[in-house]
């Protein structure tokens, strides 16, 4: 079961980097968050920990329902071109993700050196997701894609924290969720503003401030 979920996370990450349009990117993000939710929920069932139920519930409510919904709404409202503005085409992106997978495996095995095999694979996937998030932020030039990249990085960290130390302390986890939700709202607000002032959300063209 755990293997299936990890596979789901991996596949959704790959889907994200080959996505060409905004809605498919959001859909894959939703899938990834759902896999994370499943993983947390299963652990909660196994260990009967009420705090984990709450964390799983929040994860589901925020990252599967609320945030994707917000992002869809922004797309609809600003009525802009839904293309992501790819700097690197999907084929090459997928190839890079393969390289990233290998690199994060190397990093995990040689630097972190956890004990068992499942931990190694979970950790390398966590690092891969963080890298994929950075990749999305750098090579997809719309403001919305950058928000998703940030959220993807955060998903990776959630997995990482859950694997290495059994999750953050409960109230820190709650505070981080709150923080992420607020940051998505604020970033969404600025996306509106950018769209209003510049009539596009291509951050590559934001170059009035220099030197």
């Amino acid at each position: 079961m755990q293997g299936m979920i990890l596979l789901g996370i991996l596949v959704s990450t790959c889907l994200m980097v080959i996505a060409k349009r905004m809605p498919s990117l959001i859909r894959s993000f939703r899938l990834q968050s759902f896999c994370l939710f499943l993983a947390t929920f299963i652990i909660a069932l196994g260990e009967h920990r009420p705090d984990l139920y709450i964390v799983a519930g929040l994860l589901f409510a925020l990252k599967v329902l609320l945030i994707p919904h917000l992002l869809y709404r922004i797309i609809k409202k600003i009525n802009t071109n839904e293309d992501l503005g790819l700097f690197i085409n999907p084929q090459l992106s997928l190839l890079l993700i393969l390289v990233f997978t290998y690199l994060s495996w190397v990093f995990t095995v040689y630097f972190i050196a956890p004990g068992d095999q499942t931990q190694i694979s979970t950790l390398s996937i966590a690092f891969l997701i963080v890298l994929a998030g950075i990749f999305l932020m750098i090579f997809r030039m719309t403001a919305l894609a950058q928000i998703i990249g940030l959220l993807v990085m955060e998903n990776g960290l959630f997995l990482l924290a859950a694997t290495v130390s059994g999750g953050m302390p409960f109230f820190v986890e709650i505070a981080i969720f709150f923080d992420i939700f607020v940051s998505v709202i604020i970033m969404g607000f600025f996306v509106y503003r950018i769209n209003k002032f510049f009539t596009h959300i291509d951050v590559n063209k934001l170059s009035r401030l220099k030197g």
Partner: protein
Amino acid sequence: MQIFFILGIPVFLAAMSFLVKKQKAVGILNCLGYLAVLPLSAAVFKKTAVSGGTVSFFNFIYLDGLSAFFILVTSVVAFAAALYSVGYIQKDLDKGIISGKKARAYYSLFNLFCLAMFFVPSVNNLGMLWVAIEMTTLISAFLVGFYNTKESVEAAWKYIIICSVGIIFALLGTILFSYAFSRTGLSKSLNWSDMAPVAHIMDKNILKIAFLFILAGYGTKAGLAPMHTWLPDAHSQAVAPISALLSGVLLKTSLYAILRFGIIVIKGAGFAYFGHLMVLLGLISLAVSCGFILVQKDLKRLLAYSSIEHVGIISLGFGLGAPLAVAGALLHVFNHAAAKSLMFFGAGNIVSAYKKHNMNAIRGVLKALPFTGIMVLMGVFALTGFPPFALFVSEIMIIIAAFTGSAYLAAGLLLLFLAVIFGAFIYHFGRMLFGNLPKGMVSAGEPLSGKLAFLFLFFLVCVSGAAAVFFKKDLIWIAQNLFPG
């Protein structure tokens, strides 16, 4: 106990900014509130500097000399900024640049921003530290994009995105720290007061890797080059009192986070690793800022790059690690906060009188704004480390420590960059301050509250250097306690 008042006053003031109808009353209430915070934070500092670290409120709050010092710096700049805001916001209101509703939003955001910055040094849990620092970013993004122009929105976007990514790395580092801690098999916690005492039995390699992430993450927020790219944009576009807070305190709170993790790394993996990284980043920051200061055309960006320079000096001081250097770096945190706030207030007055950021279009400030002009002139000398001002004392402490610790290369480079930056500052400000007024320019009045803010900061810049010479022994004792060994 005082800490609850320090955290409570900004909350109260934020609520007041919605309840009280008159703008001016809100501003004055703000000043009084932060005036009350000032002695409270001094009391906290006095208590903790002697007694060492104390944990309170269900392990939630941890205060020691280091955190109390940063609270003190925050309260000083917050008070000055509150004082300056009264006149500044009133002027914007009179000119019709902002509406009354917006002024109210300004005051509530100002207080929330200060609350988040008071929170950073007082929390015990390293995860909450992360949340607090991310909160400072989110709140101040609105204050950077406050004027709603193309430039300010662009600056706010870059600020929020670059800092958020940076800070995600910091969270990664934090998780790795907690991993290193949980591997010792003691307990599972993110509390600094639990982690620091057992740092010496943590896995060295994991600590080293984790610290790299911390340095990349919080270093972004602290404005250390090469992760500084958001800084000149945000500082130049923010409202003037907020620029002072950003540069004077926000960068320092991130440095505080780096130091907190640094102390664990020093205990766990030896001083050399921490020291080399800090010295390296400090020198890179100095070099980068030096280049940009020389060719700068925009007044507020010039000051922003100067902040990168001073953060570089501070990080160099901590990296050298000798008690004298650490004491100098701590003192420099305070001095830079005071001097840079003074300069940003001056720049705010100049920009609002000339309506331009471009230094080529600004001439004859001493004639147009006599009081601001004199203060800025003094501020330039203070900021570039001219005796008898306080920054001279803190910089000379770091330089002496570098020479006696036989870090000749670092000391030589520091002196070189300081000399070049001194020349550049004198050149830029000499052209702006002296000379004839541009045509059609009439000298405008300067509000009283702004003048008081200038005098307060100027007093600090003059006095704190002399005070440091008198209390040198105490300062070095605090520094020794900070970095044992």
